[in-house]
């Protein structure tokens, strides 16, 4: 039961901030109000500790309030502020050079936004300029943000709400369906295809082998650019710096947001292959953003990348992901009439439950058991499960213990019976 202070706070949030959203969480019995954060822990305003396995879509990939990010912000603030977006700046150029080095090849220019949505808009505008075509193909029920163009590439729930949908310019096709993709592209009237390497909000369905490579080949065949939305799959979450590297795909445009800012200072980046960045030469003032590429954010992003490039990182994320995979596999054995699938690539995971909107009761029981993970908006049978890349062995073990208990209780709630068919753990 929430404290009187918290109840009052929630009432205030309904009154002054966002009644629909605040109430929706109360209806799902998640009365979370996050106060303090540290590492992979959230502390509710009533003091309850939660392991963060949502990470706000990877924003807190390296943990909340990473001490090195705090330090770099403090140091940067002794000299810089956001900066003046019209001029070359020390931070922006330095980060752009780093991204060019990390991405390699002719992934050459970086354009900055203040958040992922703006970055997606920049990517779409860049593709349109490069190809002088308007259409952008995206995946059904996808999510790319809420700005003017990004929202059109996502599930129509968010575009039609604001009468902002543009179905003629944004054809959508099912994920993992190459025929539909080719149908959409073969008129040669599309500037690009935008896709998350593994669609997050759709519960991380894994691309079937060869799918992404084939999409890229279709793009080449039909004169469209491949835009990789790596907001949730980038930054070592799949065991490589960018998710597309896992699948051997070379995008024409890369979008990174969320985790790149370490959750500390907003920034998002679009990295563009040299041949497709023509507008930067034709009219470099073509896209402006006062806060896009804020200079302190650039330093934070550089530090985040530095942390992720350390020699221990690959082994670390592989250890975390494999332990999760093993442990979740064992839990699935215990409750295999309810917990029916694990979608996994590195620490990008979707847990499937064989029950309508089954991820919601799981989320609720996880919340009661000190774990925060969120259902997939566009496939609520699936829980998005996103452990941090720097999690310790002990924390992984604790997380799995809590997940096992919560899934058992959720199963009992959904399917009845005191507990799952408990089998020998051996």
């Amino acid at each position, binding site marked *: 039961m929430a404290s009187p202070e918290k109840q009052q706070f929630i009432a205030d949030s309904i009154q002054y901030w966002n009644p629909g959203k605040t109430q929706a969480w109360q209806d799902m019995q998640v009365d979370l109000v996050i106060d303090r954060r540290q590492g992979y822990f959230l502390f509710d305003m009533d003091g309850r500790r939660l392991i963060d396995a949502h990470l706000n879509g990877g924003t807190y990939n390296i943990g909340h309030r990473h001490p090195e990010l705090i330090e770099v912000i403090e140091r940067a603030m002794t000299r810089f502020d956001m900066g003046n977006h019209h001029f070359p700046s020390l931070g922006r150029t330095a980060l752009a050079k780093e991204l060019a080095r990390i991405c390699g090849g002719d992934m050459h220019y970086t354009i900055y936004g203040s958040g992922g949505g703006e970055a997606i808009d920049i990517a779409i505008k860049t593709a349109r300029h490069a190809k002088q075509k308007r259409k952008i193909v995206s995946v059904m029920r996808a999510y790319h943000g809420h700005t003017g163009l990004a929202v059109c590439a996502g599930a129509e729930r968010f575009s039609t709400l604001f009468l902002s949908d543009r179905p003629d310019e944004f054809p959508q096709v099912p994920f993992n369906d190459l025929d539909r993709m080719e149908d959409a592209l073969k008129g040669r009237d599309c500037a690009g295809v935008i896709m998350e390497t593994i669609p997050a909000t759709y519960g991380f369905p894994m691309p079937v082998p060869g799918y992404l490579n084939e999409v890229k080949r279709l793009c080449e065949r039909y004169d469209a650019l491949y835009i990789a939305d790596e907001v949730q799959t980038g930054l070592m979450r799949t065991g490589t710096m960018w998710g597309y590297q896992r699948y051997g795909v070379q995008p024409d445009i890369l979008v990174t947001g969320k985790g790149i800012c370490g959750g500390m200072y907003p920034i998002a980046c679009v990295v563009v292959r040299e041949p497709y960045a023509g507008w930067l030469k034709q009219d470099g003032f073509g896209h402006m953003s006062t806060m896009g590429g804020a200079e302190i954010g650039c330093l934070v992003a550089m530090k985040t990348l530095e942390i992720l490039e350390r020699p221990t990182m690959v082994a670390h994320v592989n250890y975390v992901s494999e332990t999760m995979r*093993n442990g979740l596999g064992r839990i699935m054995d215990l409750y295999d009439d309810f917990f029916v699938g694990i979608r996994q690539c590195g620490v990008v995971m979707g847990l499937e439950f064989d029950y309508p909107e089954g991820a919601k009761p799981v989320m609720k029981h996880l919340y009661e058991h000190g774990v925060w993970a969120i259902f997939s908006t566009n*496939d609520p049978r699936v829980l998005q499960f996103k452990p941090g890349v720097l999690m310790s062995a002990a924390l992984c073990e604790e997380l799995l213990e809590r997940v096992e208990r919560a899934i058992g209780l959720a199963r009992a709630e959904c399917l009845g019976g005191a507990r799952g068919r408990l089998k020998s753990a051996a």
Partner: protein
Amino acid sequence: MTAIVAELLAGAKRPIGRADQMLDVAEWAAAAYARFDHRAVDAIVCAAAEAGHAKAAALAEAAVKETGFGVVAHKTLKNQMTSRGLYEHYRGQDFCSKRVRAADKVVELPRPAGVVFALTPSTNPVCTVYFKVLLALMTRNAIVVSPHPLAKECSAEAARTMAEAAERAGAPAGVVQVIDEPNLALVEHVMASPRVQVILATGGAPMVRAAYGSGNPAIGVGPGNAPVLVDATADADAAARRIVESKSFDNSVLCTNESVVIAEEAVSDKLAAAMARYGAVMVKDDEVAPLRQALFGAGTFAVDLLGRSAATIAQRAGVRVPASAKVLLAPIDRVGLDEPLSREKLCPVLGFIRVPHARAGISMARALVRMAGAGHSAAIHSRSSETVMAFASALRSLRIVVNAPCSQGAAGYGTHLAPSFTIGTGFFGRSSVGENIGPEHLINWTRIAYPDDASEPMGDFAGLEPWTSLGPLAGGREAPMSLGVLQEGAPPRAPKTAHAAPRAAAIDEMAVLREEIRRLVQDELRRALRS
């Protein structure tokens, strides 16, 4: 990037952050490695040892070049002894399997410490790294090495050589790691980390004390200052040969080297003459003062003469000796604080003092150890068991090497002590372990104990191996088996029911379809409600 940006990014927390990430991975690696069986561990230790052995000479040269200490040939030998030699010494021993003591109704399971944090010195850099890494690998521990800053390059290279070989032989990623840029603040941070289970501290006294002060379990070693007593029953010629051999070995950088020769009058001239034949040079009485000044003029031992040759030291002291001189003998008339030459000297300079009889020699040796080097080593050359016993029981030393070179003998070479480059100085020497450190010091044992009551039988553990025969333990949570290598494909589970199979394409298409239907129904409802 510009200097300004580089400067802003280079905060004090960077090295600490890097080290914490190393410890995290070490912890994971230790969890994985703790489930290896003896055969797999043996293959890994062998591979690491062979890789170290192959670079023994190159890294000996690199160490002398980097530090200026010691002799390449001797360091090569030490590097060989601490790589292949150490592997061969422990080859038959198993620190990974259960031990059943049926008579006691006890089963013992070896439990690795986890993450070992190893401080290694500048004097014996490569061989100490080799030694500690192999000890950790034998016992299924992960190890993070922090070399002495003066020897950081050769030490890091040594650690990486073994790390790469171990991983190639199947060890988990990150099981052996090294801090490339060690500094005091960083070392103190790591020593105090809750991720470190035991500190293996070899180095100067302040570092060893800091290890004990860290709050973590530590195995540290105190300084040495070994007396060597030669009594009238000794074979003077053999004693002379052994002492010179020991004192000149690697220019005396081993902490087990002899510090002061205590010779019974009856044999002292013979001994001195024999030592001269083997390459020791007795300096003249009026040369003792300049030698003392060169070595201890600043109050403490002149670090720039550490591990240098006898000729170099003589030259510094203004003493003329032949270039072939292996050891300088300094005649002294007392030991104690008022004779600096009776302190520890990690260089080929030996004090030389005569005593009227063995009993006086024992008192003298006791005084030497009282001043410094308690719990460490001492040597005696004698054929009298009685004198040996009196010497051993009088001295607060934990290794008494008889009729052998002390440098090597106390470190377990040419004796049956454990071969070691970390000499436990025990309670006398403010340490937790009094023996030569070996693999057994890096594990604890879980003991399964049945009642001594005969009516309660002991279980049958034949064929049960704790980590290898039971499959995943603790819900598959305790140990990643991929060893930090990327795993591809489906989760580790055979689908049991039709709907359990994560058939990506099929499920996704069904999910899309379901979503479509749900959306259509909702739209339908909404429209119905609106109208």
